[in-house]
């Protein structure tokens, strides 16, 4: 199947439509909530939570004995929340740092989950196959009810987000101030963390435990580069997330042997790369261009100031001087000289230059300004 075939099939084929919708909604909700995780400097929390959810899935299966995806997700949610609050407990009550706490909970929970999974595999229960799809996710197993569940959760998240927008925003940027205003910061904090856990758990079936954190971070990190406004960032992140979902699904459907999760992550990574390089205000490309431009301006000024000092010693400011004497000066290039001519600061006759009236004025003001700035 080629990509164009994919887009023509997307409206008619049930499976493709469900998967595409599912990944798009998932991308949107994770991007939305991921913005908060990135801004709160909790980026790696997502990684820890998604790993910590694994034993919950296994335990839910062991207890219920059935592979009802809602029950499994509930188990994942509970175990993810336990992991999150244990991480907080470790950071708050002991001198272990946050990175240690994250790595610890991540690996210990995951290891325990693996123990349970391998234990389940030895059990005489025909139902057990397919639990390991939660490791890497399998978008193909999405059914319509899963998509509905995601949509409902997204709607609830969006509603609560809009309802408490002011509080979330304030807590994000100035937690102490929020507290002094009398808001219950603990409640807001728990609310937003629980939402992040919820979004991660929803994505486990599609993207899997290992790659879920990238779904959370990448759209938000990309969106961050384009704006300084929270609302625009959340919106952009949701958009990027949804697009990575759709493109990722399209690419993986059009090739053999490509699982959806990794492809979505790579597409999201491409979004990040493009944003890092091409964003107008923060991007590396424009930053470099601005840097070069500033340096040129500075060189221009330096050359002009140097010329001014030479011209100053003469009664006639437009007395011609040889271009050669500029050669010792570092700021001098053919280009800067040409630019000065273009700006009508300098005239060139043969291999001699002379300052114009305007050039002399600008240069002396330049000098004064610098003096004033220094004072």
């Amino acid at each position, binding site marked *: 199947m080629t990509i164009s075939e994919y887009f023509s099939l997307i409206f008619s084929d049930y499976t493709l439509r469900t998967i595409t919708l599912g990944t798009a909604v998932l991308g949107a909700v994770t991007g939305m909530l991921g913005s908060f995780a990135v801004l709160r400097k909790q980026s790696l929390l997502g990684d820890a939570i998604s790993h910590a959810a694994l034993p919950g899935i296994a335990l839910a299966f062991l207890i219920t004995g059935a592979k009802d995806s809602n029950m499994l997700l509930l188990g994942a949610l509970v175990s993810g929340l336990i992991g999150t609050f244990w991480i907080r407990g470790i950071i708050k009550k002991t001198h272990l740092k946050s990175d240690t706490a994250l790595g610890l909970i991540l690996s210990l*929970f995951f290891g325990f989950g693996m123990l349970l999974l391998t*234990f389940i595999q030895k059990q005489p229960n025909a139902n057990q196959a397919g639990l390991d799809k939660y490791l*890497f996710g399998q978008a193909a197993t999405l059914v319509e009810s899963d998509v509905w569940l995601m949509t409902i959760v997204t709607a609830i998240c969006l509603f609560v987000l809009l309802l408490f927008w002011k509080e979330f925003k304030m807590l994000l940027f100035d937690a102490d101030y929020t507290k002094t205003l009398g808001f219950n910061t603990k409640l807001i904090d728990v609310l937003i963390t629980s939402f992040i856990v919820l979004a991660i758990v929803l994505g486990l079936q599609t993207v899997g435990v290992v790659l879920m954190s990238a779904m959370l971070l990448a759209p938000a990190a990309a969106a961050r580069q384009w704006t300084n406004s929270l609302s625009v960032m959340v919106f952009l992140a949701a958009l990027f997330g949804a697009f990575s979902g759709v493109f990722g699904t399209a690419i993986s459907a059009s090739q053999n042997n490509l699982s959806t*999760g990794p492809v979505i992550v790579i597409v999201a990574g491409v979004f990040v790369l493009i944003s890092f390089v091409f964003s107008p205000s923060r991007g590396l490309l424009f930053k470099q261009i601005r840097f070069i431009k500033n340096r040129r301006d500075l060189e221009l000024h330096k050359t002009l100031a140097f010329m001014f000092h030479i011209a100053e010693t003469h009664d006639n400011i437009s007395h011609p001087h040889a271009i050669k004497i500029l050669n010792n000066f570092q700021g001098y290039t053919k280009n800067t000289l040409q630019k000065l001519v273009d700006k009508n600061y300098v005239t060139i006759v043969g291999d001699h230059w002379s300052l114009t009236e305007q050039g002399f004025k600008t240069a002396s003001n330049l000098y004064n300004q610098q003096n004033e700035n220094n004072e």
Partner: protein
Amino acid sequence: MSNAQIEIQLIASLVAIACAIPGTFLVLRKMAMISDAISHSILPGIVIGFFITQDLNSPLLILLAALTGIITVVLVEYIQKTGLVKEDTAIGLVFPILFSIGVILIAKNANDVHLDVDAVLLGELAFAPFDRLMISGVDVGPKSLWIIGSILVITIGLLIAFFKELKVSTFDAGLAASLGFSPAILHYGLMTVSSVTTVGAFDAVGAILVVALMIAPAATAYLLTTNLKRMLVYSVCFGIFSAISGYWLAHWLDASIAGSITTMLGLLFLTVYLFAPNKGIIAVLYREKQQRTEVLLITFLLHLKNHNDERERHVNHLNEHINWQKVRSKTILDLALKNNMISIGNKIVSLTEKGDEFTTQAIDYIITNEDAQIEHMKDDFFLFRG
């Protein structure tokens, strides 16, 4: 115990030691999550190395994969330096993308590669003894035993050679730099050792559980001691203990060995987290409660000192004035009585001579803004603590 069982336990213990040593420094340098990133992002290195060497145990593959680990660290640092995102976001972006590339490489070449993503993530210790190293036809033991053994020897050698430098640069990077130890060399040296260890250990215990073996013993040891040498020894012991007990747990449950080792590490950490003498949760909570009571006691004594009038020291009046709950006031009063700070007669509470001396000194410290000194006074005056 059969021969294979002994070999498995030996490999597990060696992996645990090899991981615990760099792990200790990672935890102390607040770089624990870097080890998680490395353990994921070596996947493409392993896959490409496997294409070239066709042998999962070749040293070239280990070096190639370790190189990917270093690339991860460099990439994370580069992204962080651009200032576009914070360090944790940079880590969180780099490793899933590299890991995805690895997964896709495996999936696209599934037919030619005898490599399974599950195996990379989880490893299978149980099969390790079957892959033997033959030297001129003589069986000298399992290959992974030799690999992890040589990595361990190198690690220990480096540790002994550079212990002083590592110690200084871990606790005071500025001092280390001014003494002439290059922080960059030590940093990348540690990263290289961690990467090589991760690669060497991955096919025994799997990529994610390497992280557990690196972080968990060190974190557990850190709760028990603040001495670097002791911390190293403790984490090595914890590693070995959980490796061996984990093996027997797996034997008993018939489950994954790596998973059981991690579970044992988790239980060990949980126990220490709860019961560590000074830094465990129970000790911390107890200390917080004790401090709360003592602060209340001092408040109460100061209140008495301030209100000399007998009317104001009447129990009813005090009750109304301070307005504590019944249980709390009883605790405080009992404690004050036990410490011989107050005497109660005729429902009037008065400071004893000792109580008076205590409060005078405490007030002195408070007005000269040396509140911290009160802590030492407590040792002198209190027979019973809160």
